[in-house]
């Protein structure tokens, strides 16, 4: 198979929030920068974000980055690295104001300052009471953000390669990175992007689960590419589930529905949250509600022919309230559940929403791996930011509005560090590693020539169902172990997928088969890491983790206050310490996470 080589100073894979932010940094500094993206930049998944971006601007009431930092550490169930968290929270105001200068149309107060609203888990004065910290642009925050940053990139001459699919990282025997291989979807042509700096900003992999709020595009490509190139994946057992995705479809029903008085009911019509959270009831935190729902379903009180969902009831609310305060919900019910929510309750299940783990990085956006006795040695030429990366600021559980912040801060940071490296350390392109290129060619060849192979759609579905059942919201020892075996079997099928359509132009069958190669790496990393971690922490909750005074809610700091590292080779696990020391302030000491 033929390929051509194109040279750039920097290549960025991904044009969502993280990729666009990183690109601004490089292009502004005058470096020749290519941004590859599977879809037009402003159709990246960041568009779906509505809630807003966190920053302790204190425009409506007193706020402080140190309070934000405390909330984030606590939210992370102490698995987040405190240096990276301090860095992010301190940088928040700067990146938000920058965004404003790029033209982001934030909602405003009468005095012209950015309007801020409260969001779950964000508090003032070290956990005292809710604070207004989220900055939004109506219900199109993510979309407005991408527009502002895309325009800025056009101005500073970033070169976009739209509808290109990156296939593999080019990494040599010394472990250094010198670009990516990619396919032009329009022609099927393969090109090697040879670069001095390579930044991954490919977003999350929420599609490993059957029920996911993520768009189809979220297939974890960067994470899969990194794993294939021998980079370990960090904390992949931690996935945030949103309690209310429409059963069978995944479409998110916002927390606002319960905020307005929506009630969750089981098959007996019981308002079961009264038993699990007598005070907060249906408004308890995401993980508590998700687990309660799962318990109801597991104990046979689910609804529907297969008893596999619960009901979100708003039929008692005045129709005017629903139509006015919850626009879109009525339509979502009709379109995706066949239910008129004014008259009937909506079927909902806890649904995969956000990937906390990813490619290990430090707060500078450098990808780091254990090497030569150092736990976090930067990989030369390789950076990552956004949902595909693990800085780690979200630890075991992300706070809402912190991921848009994450991609701004670490997107910028990755770009800035790359600029510094280009200026001071990396003067020339390192020769391309031929064997890495050959591996991509062999992978595409294999797919094109496979006979009697596995069907892509069916194999993906088998993976998604297995993940949902064996590594969902609530995890069981035996189920996890079984799930590992099952996922390994499915990985065998993924290695033999077959496509019927062999055409060149926008061959969606081929694109999806190549995406599945990435999804399966994420699925393996997730289930193997989850199987090994025998405690409960944040979003990872196991039935066999004992709640005792030493291990409150099953969290076992003595043994498990550490990051997981999963290596693709041999499905092997390693661990590294959590960075408990912030940059300038005192450590936020371990405590039981209670709200």
């Amino acid at each position, binding site marked *: 198979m033929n390929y051509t080589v194109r040279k750039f100073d920097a290549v960025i894979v991904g044009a969502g929030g993280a990729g666009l932010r990183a690109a601004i940094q490089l292009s502004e500094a005058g470096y020749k920068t290519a941004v590859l993206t*599977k*879809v037009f930049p*402003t*159709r*990246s*998944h*960041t*568009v*779906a974000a509505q809630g807003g971006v966190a920053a302790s601007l204190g425009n409506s009431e007193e706020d402080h980055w140190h309070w934000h930092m405390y909330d984030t550490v606590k939210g992370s169930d102490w698995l987040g690295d405190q240096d990276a968290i301090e860095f992010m929270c301190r940088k928040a105001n700067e990146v938000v104001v920058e965004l404003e200068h790029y033209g982001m149309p934030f909602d405003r107060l009468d005095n012209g300052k950015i309007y801020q609203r409260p969001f779950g888990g964000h508090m003032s004065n070290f956990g005292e009471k809710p604070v207004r910290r989220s900055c939004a642009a109506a219900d*199109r925050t993510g*979309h407005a953000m991408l527009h502002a940053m895309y325009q800025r990139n056009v101005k500073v001459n970033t070169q976009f390669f739209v*509808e290109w699919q990156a296939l593999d990282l080019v990494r040599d025997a010394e472990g250094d990175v010198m670009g990516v291989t990619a396919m032009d*979807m*329009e022609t099927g042509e393969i090109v090697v992007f040879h670069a001095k700096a390579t930044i991954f900003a490919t977003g999350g992999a929420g599609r490993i689960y059957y029920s*996911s*709020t*993520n*768009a*189809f*595009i979220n297939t974890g490509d960067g994470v899969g590419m990194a794993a294939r190139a021998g980079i370990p994946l960090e904390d992949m057992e931690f996935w945030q589930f949103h309690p209310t995705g*429409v*059963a*069978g*479809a*995944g*479409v*998110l029903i916002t927390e606002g529905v319960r905020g307005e008085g929506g009630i969750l009911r089981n098959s007996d019509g019981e308002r079961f949250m009264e038993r699990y959270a007598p005070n907060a009831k249906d408004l308890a935190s995401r993980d508590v509600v998700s687990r309660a729902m799962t318990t109801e379903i597991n104990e046979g009180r689910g609804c*529907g*022919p*297969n008893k*596999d*969902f619960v009901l979100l009831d708003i039929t008692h609310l005045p129709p005017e309230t629903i139509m006015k305060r919850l*626009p*879109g919900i009525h*339509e*979502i019910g*009709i*379109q*995706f*559940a*066949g239910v008129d929510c004014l008259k009937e309750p909506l*079927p909902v299940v806890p649904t995969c929403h956000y990937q906390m783990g990813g490619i290990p990085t430090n707060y500078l956006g450098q990808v780091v791996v254990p090497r030569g006795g150092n736990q976090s040695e930067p990989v030369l030429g390789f950076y990552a930011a956004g949902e595909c990366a693990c800085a780690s600021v979200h630890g075991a559980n992300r706070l809402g509005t912190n991921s848009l912040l994450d991609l701004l801060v670490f997107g910028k940071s990755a770009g800035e560090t790359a600029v510094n490296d280009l200026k001071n350390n990396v003067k020339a392109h390192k020769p391309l590693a031929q064997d890495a290129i050959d591996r991509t060619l062999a992978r595409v060849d294999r797919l094109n020539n496979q006979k009697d192979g596995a069907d892509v759609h069916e194999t993906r579905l088998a993976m998604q169902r297995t993940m949902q059942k064996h590594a969902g919201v609530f995890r069981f020892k035996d189920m996890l172990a079984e799930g590992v075996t099952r996922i390994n079997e499915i990985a065998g099928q993924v290695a033999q997928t077959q496509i019927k*359509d062999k*055409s060149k*132009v*926008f*061959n*969606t069958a081929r*694109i999806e088969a190549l995406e599945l190669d990435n999804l399966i790496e994420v699925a393996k990393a997730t289930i193997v890491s989850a199987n090994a971690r025998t405690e409960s922490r944040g979003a990872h909750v196991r039935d066999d983790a004992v709640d005792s005074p030493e291990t409150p809610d099953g969290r076992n700091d003595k043994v498990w206050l550490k990051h997981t590292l999963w290596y693709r080779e041999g499905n092997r696990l390693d661990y590294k310490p959590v960075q408990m020391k912030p940059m300038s302030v005192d450590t936020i000491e371990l405590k039981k996470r209670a709200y």
Partner: protein
Amino acid sequence: MTEDRRARINRLKWHCRRALLELDLVFDRFWERYEETLDAQGEAALESLLELEDHDLWALVSGREITGDPRMAAMIERLREISPIANFE
């Protein structure tokens, strides 16, 4: 399917990969039903719809907003009538 048509359909299909899951689900169903029969007029209507921003497109498909363009309106009607009702398994 001719090679030409295959290429055109594949391109449209890829452009149906959107940032919002709502739209992905709608288009998934659409292709299941119309891949074989979509005519040139349908292709053109779909193509111009796909130029829209995701939130605007979803506002049309979900019926919150209405388009004045009759060609687009017919396509939106088609997308709406095959609402991808969840399959409870």
